[in-house]
């Protein structure tokens, strides 16, 4: 069976700086895959290219068998990708519910939207309590829930999560990873990008280590966790690890 997401030789440039240099990877249905690496390694740029937020300077992005390279961003959503951006990026002045409805923007069927809304509220009862509040009034953890809930609204096949742990208290980080684990076990395919490699590799089945825009190591998460190269490559270079 064809992979759900296939990235071939992806390159991303900002101006003259090339930050992703020929990355290839595949995410099969039901997988949970983590890309880890230090700050500035190019992790977020890969996800942004996958979502069509930056143009790919080279290579191809194929989602659900459709080549989306150079296609507008919204086609990734209709193609089955749900995105949780780095730093949560909830719409601050919109209410919690409107944020969620924005996530279902591509869903025309109102019944489906109501169904998704009910499901998100079931997963996150706190969001239902606060459905009329502007998102800016939520705590960091609640905003993260909202960002994930929003990504689930369109009923994605692939959930793409960027730095879920960033700026959150340890307890909340644990809850977030538990949630990702739960969603994955309920059958959702997940692509994670994380600086917190330990946590990510506990949840993920597969891991990719990115350095300077290139994948230098990949394999089963369980293997990677103990791999000397991984420990060396990752911790040796990242002084600011938390």
């Amino acid at each position, binding site marked *: 069976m064809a992979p759900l997401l296939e990235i071939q030789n992806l390159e991303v440039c900002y101006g003259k700086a090339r930050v992703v240099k020929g990355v290839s990877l595949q995410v099969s249905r039901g997988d949970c895959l983590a890309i880890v690496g230090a700050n500035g390694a190019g992790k977020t740029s890969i996800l942004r290219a996958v*979502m*069509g*937020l930056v143009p790919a300077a080279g290579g191809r992005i194929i989602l659900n068998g459709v080549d989306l390279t150079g296609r*507008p*961003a*919204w086609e*990734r*959503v*209709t193609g089955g990708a749900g*995105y949780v*951006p780095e730093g949560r*990026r909830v*719409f*601050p*002045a*919109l*209410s919690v519910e*409107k944020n969620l*409805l*924005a*996530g279902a*923007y*591509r869903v025309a069927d109102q019944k489906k939207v109501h169904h998704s809304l009910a499901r998100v509220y079931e997963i996150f009862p706190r969001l239902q309590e606060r459905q009329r509040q*502007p998102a800016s009034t939520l705590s960091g953890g609640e905003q993260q829930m909202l960002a994930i809930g*929003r990504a689930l609204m*369109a009923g994605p096949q692939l959930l793409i999560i960027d730095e879920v742990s960033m700026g959150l208290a340890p307890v909340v980080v644990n809850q977030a990873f538990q949630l990702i684990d739960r969603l994955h076990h309920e059958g959702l395919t997940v692509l994670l990008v994380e600086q917190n490699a330990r946590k990510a590799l506990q949840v993920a089945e597969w891991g990719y280590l990115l350095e300077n825009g290139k994948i230098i190591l990949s394999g089963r998460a369980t293997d990677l966790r103990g791999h000397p190269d991984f420990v060396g490559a990752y911790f040796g270079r990242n002084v600011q690890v938390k």
Partner: protein
Amino acid sequence: MLLQQIVNGITIGSLYSLVALGLTMVYGIMRVLDIANAGAYTLGAYLGVWAYTRTHSIIIALLAGVGGAAITGYLFQRAVYTPIKKVADPIVPLVASIGLFIVMEDLFRLIAGPYTITFPVHLPLNRLTLGSVIITGTQAVILLVSAFLFLLLWILLNKTKIGLAWQATAQDVETAMAMGINTRSVVAFAFILGYAFAALAGILVAIHYNAVFPTMGDIPSYKMLAIVVLGGLGNPLGAVVASMVVGLAEALVAGYIGSFLPTDAIAFLALIILLLVRPQGLFASGGDAR
């Protein structure tokens, strides 16, 4: 007299808010201070009067003015603003919009002549007297039409999908894109709606003053900037509130203090004082329209 001046102020404020709304819709999405929006105001009035003198139908006049301006907005966005926005800092689209405005005004003069053209629509309402307060026919029409348009815009922004898309895009373009919102269409929508609103305001003002002339957009072109900033750039509700504040201030100053400064300077003086106290404006930018 106070009540009367409040009615006067709210009428002036309503006229301002119609123009300010168009500008703030565009700013909310594009972060462009679009002086040329005031050109759409004049364009609407000219197309309106052109259609009206041929058909004597106010409906057709409105459609012609609003439609023509909406198309212009779309063309400007596609041909000028979007390509410029990709490459440069905010002063570049500002200068381009000033250029567009100058071109528009001069075209109006060359095509329609420098003289004032009348817009002889007879408004059906008579003077209303409520106690000591007089509401003139045109005041009543302006108040009713703008109340109706505010309601329409509020529904559009808060109860429709495109309104949700506008708000999401105004607050965070990239995340809106990632949610599957076609932000290119939203930008086009903002320009179309923004220019349509300006044209509508232009037609209403032209009827109110029975006058269409090439430079009628001059004062709105910069005064609206002050109002839109007062209301927190890109915030439709704020723009309406700020319009009312400025309208009331102008009426009360004219009524009680006399003209110690030109009326336009009052709006800007209010703006400067406010920004010193609240650097973010009366309301925060890009807010929810409620």
